[in-house]
């Protein structure tokens, strides 16, 4: 199969950007990504713009003044998996030889919403009924947390330890919104949001950010060539009456596809950026991604294997918990982090000698499914 390369990437700092319009924020990431890739604007043949809540034809607005000369712009929305889905679709077009060089952009301005939880897609009787009763994403993850503590005989401190690890990583990342370390005591003592999840166990919801990558079919540049080894996007199955809410079925299915496509096993992965929107999510995804056997997630965390310096560091960027989660930008920013890690450009948070990296995004927002969309990518040098 045709090799697909990530020529370069960039992101803005994730955080509050008051007074900055979406096009300005996104253009920062685009221009830096083009520069990083050594690709001229005239070489880009198509743009994939991932965004969730920014309104219609945002991609065209963002590129209007960039001189892309009327090339196709595809606006992509798939909840939290939007950015990864943009990369997935771009790869399809490159494999089909429709284009040879494209740009994928992710952008979100959550501060424009004024805070609070991400709204659900309520154009549905079930979601409307459940949302009226109080279903929000923190509640969904909190119920997983409650069940996890019940079945696994673990404690809230085991959940909180995920936040401590990722905030320690985030303190090393100049692009993260939260750049200070925290302690187990601080995490557990922060305000209860949705029992057992406290405030510091939820990714910040007041955050803006953009990220961009340039993909192509030909090897170029002097740096180590990073290939997209595999790309999976799947959708949630309708929930059944006695589903196990701890099995992260949609994510495990996406991961199986990605590993099979790449001919890679979980033990081959050196670095992971996964969707830790809440602390419980990271533990469930250790098992769904095959990093830990069923029942071993907490033991893997406490072993130090997933911290910087461990066997397979997870979320060296700080993850969503430290970096923040500007929905459409998240999946692309994960790719940027893995690109930098595989090319030895991650500074103080570098995973030495990393050769294979994994990214995972899983997005929700409707009732009646585990999640709506999940995407797993494997990148390698």
């Amino acid at each position, binding site marked *: 199969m045709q090799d697909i390369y990530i020529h370069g990437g960039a992101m803005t700092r994730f955080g509050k950007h008051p007074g900055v319009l979406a096009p300005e924020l996104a253009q920062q990431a685009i221009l830096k990504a083009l520069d990083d890739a050594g690709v001229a604007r005239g070489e880009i043949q198509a743009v994939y713009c991932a965004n969730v809540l920014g309104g219609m034809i945002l991609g065209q607005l963002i590129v209007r003044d960039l001189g892309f000369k009327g090339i196709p712009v595809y606006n992509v929305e798939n909840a939290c998996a939007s950015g990864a889905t943009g990369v997935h679709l771009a790869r399809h077009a490159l494999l089909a030889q429709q284009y040879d060089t494209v740009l994928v952009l992710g952008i979100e301005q959550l501060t424009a919403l004024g805070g609070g939880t991400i709204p659900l897609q309520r154009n549905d009787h079930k979601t409307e009924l459940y949302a009226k009763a109080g279903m929000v994403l923190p509640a969904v993850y909190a119920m997983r947390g409650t069940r996890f503590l019940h079945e696994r005989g673990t404690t809230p401190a085991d959940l909180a330890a995920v936040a401590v690890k990722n905030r320690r990583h985030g303190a090393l990342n100049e692009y993260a919104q939260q750049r200070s370390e925290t302690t187990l005591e601080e995490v557990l003592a922060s305000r209860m949001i949705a029992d057992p999840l406290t405030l510091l166990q939820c990714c910040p919801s007041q955050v803006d950010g953009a990220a961009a990558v340039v993909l192509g079919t030909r090897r170029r540049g002097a740096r180590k060539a990073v290939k997209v080894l595999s790309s999976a996007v799947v959708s949630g199955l309708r929930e059944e009456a*006695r589903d196990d809410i701890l099995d992260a079925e949609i994510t495990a299915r996406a991961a199986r596809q990605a590993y099979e496509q790449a001919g890679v096993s979980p033990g081959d992965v050196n670095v992971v950026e996964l969707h830790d929107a809440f602390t419980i999510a990271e533990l469930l995804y250790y098992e769904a991604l095959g990093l830990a056997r069923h029942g071993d997630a907490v033991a893997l965390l406490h072993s130090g294997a997933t911290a910087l310096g461990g066997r397979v560091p997870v979320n060296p960027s700080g993850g969503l918990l430290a970096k923040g989660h500007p929905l459409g930008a998240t999946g692309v920013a994960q790719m940027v982090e893995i690109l930098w890690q595989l090319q030895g450009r991650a500074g103080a948070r570098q995973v030495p000698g990393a050769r294979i990296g994994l990214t995972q995004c899983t997005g929700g927002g409707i009732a009646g499914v585990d999640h709506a969309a999940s995407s797993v990518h494997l990148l390698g040098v």
Partner: protein
Amino acid sequence: MSEPSYPLWRNAPEPALLASRDLDSGELVFPALSADSPLAQRHEIVPLAGVGEVYSFTVIHPSPKSGEAPYALGYVDLPGPVRLFGRLCGQPRPAIGDRYAARPDERFGYVFEAVLA
């Protein structure tokens, strides 16, 4: 959204939440499908059992600025089988396995009330 176009409750002989049962697979869908749904003809509307067990739950602590008191939410597994989400009332903190019964509620359509021994 405007008033729901699906039936939520059967009122007689005693109140029961309603679901749609797939005529082929027997699987239950809650809430029941609207009569306007193109899938409605492949389903029949059936009453659900009134009492089930908590599969998991959370207690939401609204922002202090809201002035709203904490409230419990959860999944309740009913015979059928079917799993419903809703407010858990009657005790401040539920436990997994606790028995709860559905009852009509003006604000939410229904809530679950703890069945105390």
